[in-house]
């Protein structure tokens, strides 16, 4: 009797925590989403009943006004998507083996290398703007997706390696040894045994890298003009000399959330799958 009632209380408390936290974190988002369907006049009211309009969305997708930021949303989204996905793919492909090596192997200077990799993330981005601008200008790579991917990779590789190293560290060495005594090489052990176990880690890291690059602003601002401009930079474009275009901006911001949402829902499914297949249990 006692365990079940304690369980009930714990569950109830858990729901309270969850609901409170979810409400608190989603109210501002709710405001943004509803605002995107309101006329600019109504945005600053809390009217629950208002005349909904799709004008803001048509502004950014089709562009009823002849401005740069109106009607080009799909172009910006495409840039953001290509850049983000490339960065994730490359950082996982390059970073995961490196993380594995740091977790499993031992060699001279390992601690220093590990630390140096993390240190690549330590400088304030502001310090690197002008040097990067100059490199890419000289190489005629300004305003290209390539430049952004290169830069984002540099910023996120360290993070990826450190994250994945942590996940590898949590897997006991016995599993490696077991696989190898079964006849696998190090590499096969890595690919067939350890990698699947780190699916939660891969997903988490992938989501984080995606978010860092999807929403990154400063580098995209400096390194892109029209061709490779990403969505966050375009959001700033709604701050105009005559006022902030709240309508289109909330619409763009709402759409901006949709893609990562879909992405993480998709990846989360793999998270669950990874667990049910997990060799760690039993």
């Amino acid at each position: 009797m006692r365990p079940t009632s304690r369980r009930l209380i714990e569950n109830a408390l858990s729901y309270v925590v969850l609901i409170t936290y979810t409400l608190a974190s989603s109210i501002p988002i709710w405001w943004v989403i509803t605002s995107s369907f309101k006329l600019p006049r109504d945005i600053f009211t809390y009217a629950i009943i208002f005349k909904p309009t799709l004008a803001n969305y048509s502004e950014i997708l089709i562009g009823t006004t002849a401005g740069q930021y109106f009607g080009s949303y799909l172009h910006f989204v495409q840039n953001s998507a290509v850049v983000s996905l490339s960065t994730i793919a490359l950082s996982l492909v390059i970073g995961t083996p490196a993380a594995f090596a740091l977790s499993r192997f031992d060699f001279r200077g390992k601690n220093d290398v590990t630390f140096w990799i993390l240190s690549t993330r330590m400088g304030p981005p502001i310090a690197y703007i002008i040097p990067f601008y100059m490199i890419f200008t000289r190489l005629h790579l300004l305003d290209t997706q390539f430049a952004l991917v290169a830069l984002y990779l540099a910023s996120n590789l360290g993070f990826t390696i450190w994250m994945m190293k942590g996940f590898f560290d949590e897997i006991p060495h016995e599993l490696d040894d077991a696989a190898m005594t079964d006849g696998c090489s190090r590499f096969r052990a890595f690919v067939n045994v350890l990698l699947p176990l780190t699916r939660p880690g891969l997903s988490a890291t992938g989501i984080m890298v995606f978010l860092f690059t999807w929403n990154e602003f400063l580098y995209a601002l400096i390194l892109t003009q029209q061709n490779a401009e990403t969505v966050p930079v375009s959001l700033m474009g709604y701050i105009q000399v005559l006022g902030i275009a709240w309508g289109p901006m909330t619409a763009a911001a709402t759409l901006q959330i949709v893609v990562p949402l879909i992405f993480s829902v998709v990846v989360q499914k793999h998270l669950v799958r990874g667990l049910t297949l997990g060799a760690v249990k039993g």
Partner: protein
Amino acid sequence: MSEKKPEEKDMSRRRYLGMTGAAVAGLVVGGVLGYVAKPTVTAPPITSTETETVTVTGTMAPPPVTTAATPYYKQFSGQTVHAVTHDTADHRAVRALIAPEFQTLTGITIDSEMMGDIVLTQKIYTQLSTGATGPYDSGMVHMWLLEGYERPGWLTNLDPLVNAHPWEGILDLNDYVPLFASWCRTSDGKLSGLPFYGHAGCYMYRKDLAEKWGLTPPKTMDDLLAVTKNAHEMGRKEFGSSFYGISMRGIRGADNPHMYFGWPWAWGGRVLDADYNVVANSPECVQAFDYYGKILQSYGPSGSATFHWPEVQRGIMEGTVFSILEATDMPGSIEDPTASKTAGKIGYALLPNGPANTTPMFSYTTTWPVFAHSPVAEAALLWSEYATSGYSQKKTVIEGNFFRTGLTSKSAWTACAAAQPAKYWMAPVLLQAMEQTTNEYMPKIPEVMEIAGPHGDAVSSIVAGTPAKVALDKAAKEIYDILTKAGYNIQMKYPV
């Protein structure tokens, strides 16, 4: 992770050397790359060739020779000008209506990129400061940046070009509102840009409520205090605690020298005197900002210390403030019924006089310079001339029906007011405000933004409650340090 190496001792020394070696190598590589990639620091500005002759290009059939010289503006046919501008209704109007016409007339293609202000300024700065020749040939530059961009030679001197190539019916330097035109000349008298957009300051208030409550626009600062107090109290009785008598900017930082520097003028104060000595903490300035802080603390919204003009403007558009002291270009938004709840209810008056018998100074101009390294400087100038001409301004308003209140051409103002009196009924007041404003209050030095930083920080803390003398003393000291370090031989007239 736990295999111990027997050669630990030896290892540490080798490791140390290895690390040092790697660090040095890194620095060397970085240094070499840095040297190679070092930005070009000086560059001479483009000088124009002053010939009116027609150049014949070596094609199969030479162009027919006419007795009349080919107009100057046709000589650049085939070139493309990359301009970067703000994304505002004015620029959109120009791009939609004026650019096609220009392209047909001159054969010059206009590639106009539009973006938000912060982004635009950063991109232009990054391009100019690294000596790049592109991607932009010309762009919008706030007038307080003009001096700082002109002195290192980043901008083309427009005088020789403008003098050598008059453009009948388009280019008329005397048609620009004198206030805005004067902002386009740098301290050495050189014309460094053309005025695209400009404003002075005025008092905007709810004339419907003023009528109801028996209030009239204030003529002096004492009046302002009284009117604001009344409006505040009556407004709260009627609308509740979210109504305020007045709203003005209070945000920190260097973004508002054109307003903050000019505020003490009404008390006889200024930030730097004519010889650049620091007088930012003079008794007049202290009085002026004491007033500024107190009126906002008593009758302004509680967020005033972080308010920039969008927040101030929104207050009046939402109907939560009775009055604002703001820019004369705001009617364009305030009178727009799709965006403003108070369209049609706003009255416009001149700023009130202070104890020194003059209004505070408040002015701004967006200038349109041509960048020095542009390979198509003359063509870019032609576009700027055309786009800022009285003719274009008139056309966008009268033919395009864009409601532009930042016009810089006197003839355009007159023509628009005559053609659309229902919209431009407040034009006389705005023009009078522009006439009454000088830009003497803002020093034309490259360091103006840098000294605007501590000054703006001080204003913000005054609005948030710091005593004016304390904040201004601190700002004055910092301004003095900045200028002496930059090489000015000056004094603090009111030492702390």
